[in-house]
């Protein structure tokens, strides 16, 4: 990992206009991604993890979605301001994505070769023959046995884990600067999950690709990421280096989240900690800390104003009134 910042997201706001009101799915998210870094975004369903990452490559369905504000600076250009034509040259080439469900992200009517060659020919100066060779190489790297035969098969002939390998091979075939992996292993079994994470870790380390890993599993980020952002109700409530965040979490939500996961290595008859209440509805959320109704340390101030992010040094920052001075 270098110090060079490759992607800078600043004050990103993505809103959805619905009949019930404005859903502020992402509301003021900022983070930096450095070259070669693996950044984890954790949070529960509806916290805005996926919307953040779809916003980065400007793929929010509009309407009802709208990027209401913020900047996404990728190697000096703001991706939210450039024309779609230029964006297309970046998507799948410089920034590529893998999704949760490997079945719906492959076209069931087309052979794997067709789908992979299409991507490679579009972005690289190769003819079809060379592109297919490249695709076979990538499949081999992603751990698909007999890739020269498998490449001419259809997606249904692959198992879930194998399909996810194809997605990884495809996503990395253009040597992207950034790989966005949105819950890449959530649909897979643990033994297959271990295989897939191993491949993502190995291949991106070889090529120096930066990774944004979105997941709800604290176990997965603990083993994969250099830095972690914790999201709650559309905001990043805490961000920090992995070791520090697990050892000394500052935000009451992060603390609660870590404590509420049952752990294999710490078996005891003790009762599991649980955060009370439900995650908030993000429709017409007032400008308070969204976590205060569930927080044990809530103060009067928490109900009135959202705390600004407080830098604790060493890349650790938290948005909580316990650490931020009221102005």
């Amino acid at each position, binding site marked *: 990992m270098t110090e060079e910042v490759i992607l800078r997201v600043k004050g990103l706001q993505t809103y959805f206009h619905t009949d019930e009101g404005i859903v502020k799915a992402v509301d003021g998210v900022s983070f930096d991604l450095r070259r070669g870094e693996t950044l984890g975004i954790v949070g529960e369903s509806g916290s805005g993890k996926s919307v953040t990452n779809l916003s980065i490559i400007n793929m929010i369905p509009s309407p009802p979605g709208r990027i209401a504000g913020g900047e996404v600076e990728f190697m000096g250009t703001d991706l939210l301001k450039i024309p779609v034509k230029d964006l297309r040259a970046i998507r799948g080439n410089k920034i590529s994505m893998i999704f949760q469900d490997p079945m719906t992200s492959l076209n069931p009517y087309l052979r794997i070769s067709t789908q992979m060659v299409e991507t490679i020919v579009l972005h690289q100066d190769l003819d079809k023959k060379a592109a297919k060779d490249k695709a076979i190489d990538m499949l081999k790297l992603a751990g698909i046995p007999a890739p020269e035969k498998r490449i001419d098969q259809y997606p249904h002939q692959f198992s879930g884990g194998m399909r996810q390998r194809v997605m990884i091979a495809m996503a990395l075939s253009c040597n992207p600067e950034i790989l966005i992996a949105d819950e890449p292993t959530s649909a897979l079994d*643990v033994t297959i999950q271990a295989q897939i994470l191993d491949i993502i870790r190995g291949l991106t380390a070889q090529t120096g690709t930066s990774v944004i890993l979105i997941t709800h599993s*604290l*176990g997965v980020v*603990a083993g994969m990421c250099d830095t972690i952002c914790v999201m709650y109700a559309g905001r990043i409530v805490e961000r920090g280096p992995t070791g520090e965040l697990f050892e000394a979490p500052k935000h009451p939500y992060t603390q609660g989240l870590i404590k509420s996961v049952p752990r294999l290595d710490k078996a005891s008859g003790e009762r599991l900690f649980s955060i009370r209440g439900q995650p908030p509805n993000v429709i017409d959320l007032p400008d308070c800390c969204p976590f205060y109704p569930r927080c044990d340390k809530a103060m009067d101030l928490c109900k009135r104003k959202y705390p600004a992010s407080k830098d604790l040094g060493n890349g650790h920052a938290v948005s909580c009134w316990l650490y931020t001075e009221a102005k």
Partner: protein
Amino acid sequence: MPNNSGGNETLLDVKDLKMHFPIGRKGLIAGEQQYIYAVDGVDFKIRKGETLGLVGESGCGKSTTARAVAQLYRPTGGSVKLKGAELTTLKARDLIAARKNMQMVFQDPYASLNPRMTSGDIISEPMRIYSRKGLVQFSRKDMEERVEQLMERVGLSRFFRNRYPHEFSGGQRQRIGIARALALQPELILCDEPVSALDVSIQAQILNLFRDLQDEFGLTYLFIAHDLAVIEYISTRVAVMYLGIIAEISGSGDLYSKPLHPYTQALLSAAPIPDPKIEKERKRIILTGDVPSPDRLRPGCPFHDRCWKKMDKCQSQKPALKEAEPGHEVACFLYHD
């Protein structure tokens, strides 16, 4: 791992349970009938008051086992005894009476509640059905009281009884499903992945609810999950399933501290632990390949093609589930012949 070790009385006794689903014939004319061998010879006992965790990967037959126990599928073979009474041979009418003592909680809190019924009606439905058949006596007023009691007990306000499922969150819906399962005061509850669809913070709430209810009502659970840490937290004993059989079964603490079957070892080493220090230093056993399809009977150990400790006989002979240490059974030739 809960402390309660359960009594000595066996509540559920499952022997050589088999569930084969027919999937049509091979070839055009009078071909051989093909089957999916979802569960192929499963033995276990659950003592009163304990929780047996059933863990394994997708398609290993966990849910099919629970459904075959509940007689939602009539098993192809084997025996299921609840409090000594055989269920597999019961006629439909007698089965209903027997099931009063055995209720289910399902994985998907969206699909398992009727969207056109209020939460109160959903919870009282078992009481209404059994009253109509004359198997229990509940007056209308009793029923209303019991619904309110149950709702408060599982952590829902009784003022929500006229609301419909779509007005509740996933965690709240799961609470409705649990209240419904408790309505007839069963001894055994079959929980089929009841926390898999829930977020971490809600999952912890529901797991604690299951434990509290067990303490309060002396319930016995068959608890299915694919998350090993969840299973360890909730279970007294754990059975690890692979491709339709039980590979290993033992006390929960024993299984996690000393897994014997190579598959259990791989499964435990693959499960991520939310601690970066441990994750960095751990040696993982990364299995090659996928779980094979259960569409044909294989000679030999079902795990042999992915096993890194396989021997010659693993390909031709099937290891039986036998005790390797007191209370710790394993189906593997490494431990017995």
